[in-house]
C-alpha cells in the first residue's frame, strides 16, 4: 500500500511542468530580437556606405517607424501587408514542422489567387455570404492541389520537394500568364494580360473605409487570426499534428511507430498549399480586385523568411508576419520621405534571416545577453 502511495506521489511529481528554460527563452526571444536590431543597424550602415547623409538616415528610420505604426492608416497598411505573408508563412511553417522545405508558396499563391479570381468574377448575383466563402475555398483548394503535386511526387517517387516546388513555381508563372490572356479570364477590351474584376459579392469587405476610404485593411485579417488558431490546434492538439511533428523531427522513429510517411507528406503539402492559396485569394479578393501577371509579388518567398523568423510556431509566424508587414509599409513611407530605396528593406529582411539562421554568430557577438553554455 505504501509503495503504491509512493508511486502515486512520484507520478504526481513527474506531472509537474518545468518552467520554460533559459535556453528556450534565448532561442525564441533573444536571438530573433537581436537579429532584427542588428539587421536594422547594419541597414543604416549600408545607407551610410551608399552615400546617404546621416540626417537622411535619421529621417528614414523615423519614416520606417511612422509609416508602419505611426498612425491608424499606417497600421492599416501594416496589417494589409502582413495578412498574406502570415497565411503563406503558416503553410511553410507547417512544412518545416514536418521536415519539408516547401519553396513553392509563390506558385501556390498564384494558383490559389487565380482560382479565387475566376470564382470571384464568374458569378454575378450571389449573396456575399455564399460567394465570398466560395471564392476563398476555391483559392484554398487550388493551392492545396498545386502543392499536393509536389507532395505526391515526393511520396511516390522520392523526388525532392525543393526541386519540384521550384519547378511548379515556374510552371505556375506561365500558367497564370496564359490564363490571363484566355478569353474567359481576360478583361474585355484589354490587350494586356489582366483578368476581369472580382464582383463585389466576392470581395473581402474593407474594415475601416468608413473612417477613410483609403484605408485598405480588410476582412482578410479575420481569416489570418482564424488560420493561426487553426494551425496551432492542428499542430499541437490533434493526432495529425502529432504525426506531422514526429515525422519532421525523426522520420525513422515515425516509421517505426507505424506512421505512414507518404500519406503524411501529401497531407502536409496539401494543408500548406491551402494556406498559401488562401494568401493568394486574400490578395485578389481583398486588395487587388483582379489578377495580373506576377500579382503575388514575391510574397511566397518572403513567407519563407516569415516562417523561419517565427520559428515555425503559429504565434511566432503571426509576429514575424506583422514585423515584415510593418517593414513593407514603413519602407514605402521611407522611400517617400527620405528618398531611400525600398530595396533597403529587402536587405534588412535578408540580414534578419541570416542572423536568425546563425544563432551561434548571435551568441558570439552578443555574448553578454546569453548564459554561458556547457561545452561538450
Amino acid at each position, binding site marked *: 500500500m505504501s509503495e503504491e502511495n509512493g*508511486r502515486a506521489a*512520484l*507520478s*504526481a511529481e*513527474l*506531472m*509537474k*511542468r*518545468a518552467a520554460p528554460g533559459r535556453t528556450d527563452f534565448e532561442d525564441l526571444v533573444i536571438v530573433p530580437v537581436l537579429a532584427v536590431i542588428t539587421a536594422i543597424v547594419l541597414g543604416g550602415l549600408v545607407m551610410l556606405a551608399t552615400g546617404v547623409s546621416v540626417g537622411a538616415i535619421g529621417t528614414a528610420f523615423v519614416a520606417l517607424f511612422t509609416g508602419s505604426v505611426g498612425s491608424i492608416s499606417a497600421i492599416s497598411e501594416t496589417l494589409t501587408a502582413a495578412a498574406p505573408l502570415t497565411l503563406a508563412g503558416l503553410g511553410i511553417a507547417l512544412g518545416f514542422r514536418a521536415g519539408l522545405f516547401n519553396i513553392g508558396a509563390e506558385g501556390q499563391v498564384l494558383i490559389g489567387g487565380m482560382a479565387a479570381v475566376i470564382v470571384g468574377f464568374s458569378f454575378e448575383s450571389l449573396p456575399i455570404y455564399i460567394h465570398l466563402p466560395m471564392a476563398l475555398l476555391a483559392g484554398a483548394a487550388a493551392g492545396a492541389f498545386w502543392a499536393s503535386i509536389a507532395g505526391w511526387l515526393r511520396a511516390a517517387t522520392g523526388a525532392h520537394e525543393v526541386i519540384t516546388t521550384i519547378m511548379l513555381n515556374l510552371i505556375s508563372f506561365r500558367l497564370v500568364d496564359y490564363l490571363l490572356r484566355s478569353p474567359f479570364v481576360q478583361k474585355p477590351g484589354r490587350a494586356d494580360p489582366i483578368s476581369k474584376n472580382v464582383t463585389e459579392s466576392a470581395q473581402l469587405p474593407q474594415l475601416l473605409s468608413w473612417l477613410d476610404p483609403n484605408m485598405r485593411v480588410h476582412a482578410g485579417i479575420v481569416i489570418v487570426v482564424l488560420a493561426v488558431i487553426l494551425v496551432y490546434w492542428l499542430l499541437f*492538439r*490533434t*493526432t*495529425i*499534428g*502529432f504525426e506531422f*511533428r*514526429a515525422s519532421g*523531427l*525523426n522520420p*525513422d*522513429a*515515425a*516509421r*517505426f*511507430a*507505424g506512421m505512414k510517411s507518404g500519406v503524411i507528406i501529401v497531407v502536409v503539402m496539401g494543408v500548406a498549399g491551402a494556406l498559401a492559396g488562401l494568401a493568394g485569394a486574400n490578395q485578389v479578393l481583398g486588395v487587388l480586385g483582379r489578377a495580373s501577371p506576377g500579382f503575388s509579388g514575391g510574397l511566397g518567398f518572403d513567407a519563407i523568411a516569415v516562417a523561419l523568423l517565427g520559428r515555425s510556431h503559429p504565434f511566432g509566424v503571426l509576429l514575424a508576419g506583422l514585423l515584415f508587414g510593418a517593414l513593407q509599409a514603413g519602407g514605402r513611407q521611407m522611400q517617400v520621405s527620405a528618398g531611400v530605396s525600398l530595396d533597403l528593406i529587402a536587405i534588412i529582411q535578408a540580414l534578419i534571416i541570416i542572423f536568425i539562421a546563425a544563432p551561434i554568430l548571435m551568441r558570439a557577438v552578443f555574448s553578454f545577453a546569453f548564459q*554561458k*553554455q*556547457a*561545452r*561538450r
Partner: protein
Amino acid sequence: MDIELRGITKRFGDLVANSGVNLSIKAGEVLGLLGENGAGKSTMMNILSGLYRPDEGEILIDGKPVSFRGPGDAIRAGIGMVHQHFMLVPVFTVAENVVLGVEPTRMLDYLDLRKAREQVREINEEYGLEVDPDELIENLPVGIQQRVEIIKVLFRSASVLIFDEPTAVLTPQEVTEFFKIVRSLRDAGKAIVFITHKLHEIHGIADRISVLRAGKIVGEGLPGKTSDQDLAEMMVGRPVTFEVEKKTFEPGEVLLDIRNLTVLRDDDSVAVDNVTFSVRSGEIVGIAGVQGNGQTALVEALTGLRRVTTGSVTFQGKDITGASVRDRHRMGFAHVPEDRQRAGMITDFTIAENMALNTYYDEPYSHGIVMDWKAVADNSAKYATAFDVRATSIFEAAGHLSGGNQQKMIVARELSRDTKLMIAAQPTRGLDVGSIEYIHKRIVAARDEGDGVLIVSSELDEILALSDRILVMFKGRVVAEFGAGARPANKNDIGLAMAGALA
C-alpha cells in the same frame, strides 16, 4: 614511457566530468579502466589525447609535466587512441589509410605508396598483425579493420595506446585474437589503457584495474583477485545481481511462427535466407550472431517495417506476413528497436510525447483526431514511475535523459500496452550495469507473464543469461540452435557458430 595524471578536473558548465583524477599508466603494462557510461572515462581519455584541456591538474610524461594544445601535441608525445568507431576510409587500401595525414612523399609531393606499404609490413611483422597492406578496407572483417587502426597508431610511433571499448564489435574468437595482439604490444614495452564496462574481459587482459564512477577514481583492483561482484559494486555504487532470476521454463502455445522467410536488403542483396523458427508464449528466444548477418532485416520483417520476399509469418495462427506496423502493435507486438536514438524515440519530443508514439491513435489518448494530452500525461507519468525512468518531469525533452533512462522509457512505452510478443533488438547496448540489470528483469517479467520474447543481441553474455533457446544467425541463415531440446548452450560452440564454423 610512463604517464601520470595528477588531480585532473574537468567541468562542462555545472557538470563535473572528472574530479581530482589520479592515474598512472606504465610501460609494459595493461591498465584496465572500468566505468559505466557517463562515469567520465571518455572525458579523461579525451584529455589524455589532447582534445580537451583539463581545468585543474597536470599530466606528466616520464616525470615531466606537459600540456597539450591539441590532438597533434598528444600524438607527437606518443599517445595514440584507437576509437570504438573506426575512422577508416572504406574505399582506400590498408596502406593508404595508415598513412592518411602523414603521407610519405617524394619530390613534387609525389605520394610514395611503396614506402607506405613497406612500413606497414614492418609493423605487421613486429607485432604479428597479419594485415595485407593492399587490401581495401571495405573487404576486411571488423576484427582486421581494428588491427588497421592499431597499425595507424603504431605508424605514428605511439608508445601509449588507448583502446576505447575495443571488443564491442568483435566475435568471441576475434576477441581472443585481439587479446593476443594487445599482449604482444605490452610485451614490446607499450603502455596500454583498456577502457571497458565488461567485467569478464578485464580479468583476461588487464594487469591492473582502476574503477571510475561519477568522475572519480573510486577503487583499484587486481585481475583474478578482485571479484566481479566487488568491481561491479565499485562501478555502480551498490550491490548488483548478475543472475537473472527466471521462473522454470514452461512454454505455452506457439505465438509466432516463421516459415521459410527470405528478406532482402535495400540493395536487393539477401539479408535473411530461408529462415524457419517459432516463438512460443512464455519463452525467450535469443538470436545470437555478429552484427550484419541479417538480424536487423529479420526484426524489420517481423515488425512490418520491411517487405517479406518469400515465406510466411503467422501470429497466433493468423497469417500476418503483410500486416502493417500498426496492425501488429494492436495485436500485441512490442518492439524495442536496435538503434534507440534513431528509431526508438524522438529526442526533441517530451517524454510524454515519446510514450504516446504508438498508442496516440487509440482511445483514451485521442478521441477522433483530437489528442487527449491529459490522458497521455497520466499514462506516461504512471509508466515512467513504474519503469524507473529517472526524470525531473515527463515534459522534459527525452534527449536530455541518459541512455539507460531513454531505453527504460522505450521499454516502458512498449510494455505499457497489453502485449503478447516482445521483440527486442540490442536491448542493452551501450547501457550501464544498473540499467542492464533492470531491463533484463523487465524482459524476464514479460516472459514469466506468458509473453513470447525474441531477443537479438550481439552480446553473447546477454543472450546466454536471458534465453531459453538460442539460435545463431550467420550470413542470413540460422546455422545452429542451442538449449531446450537441442544441444546445451555453450559459449565456445556458439562463438564458433557465430563465426560461421558450423555453417
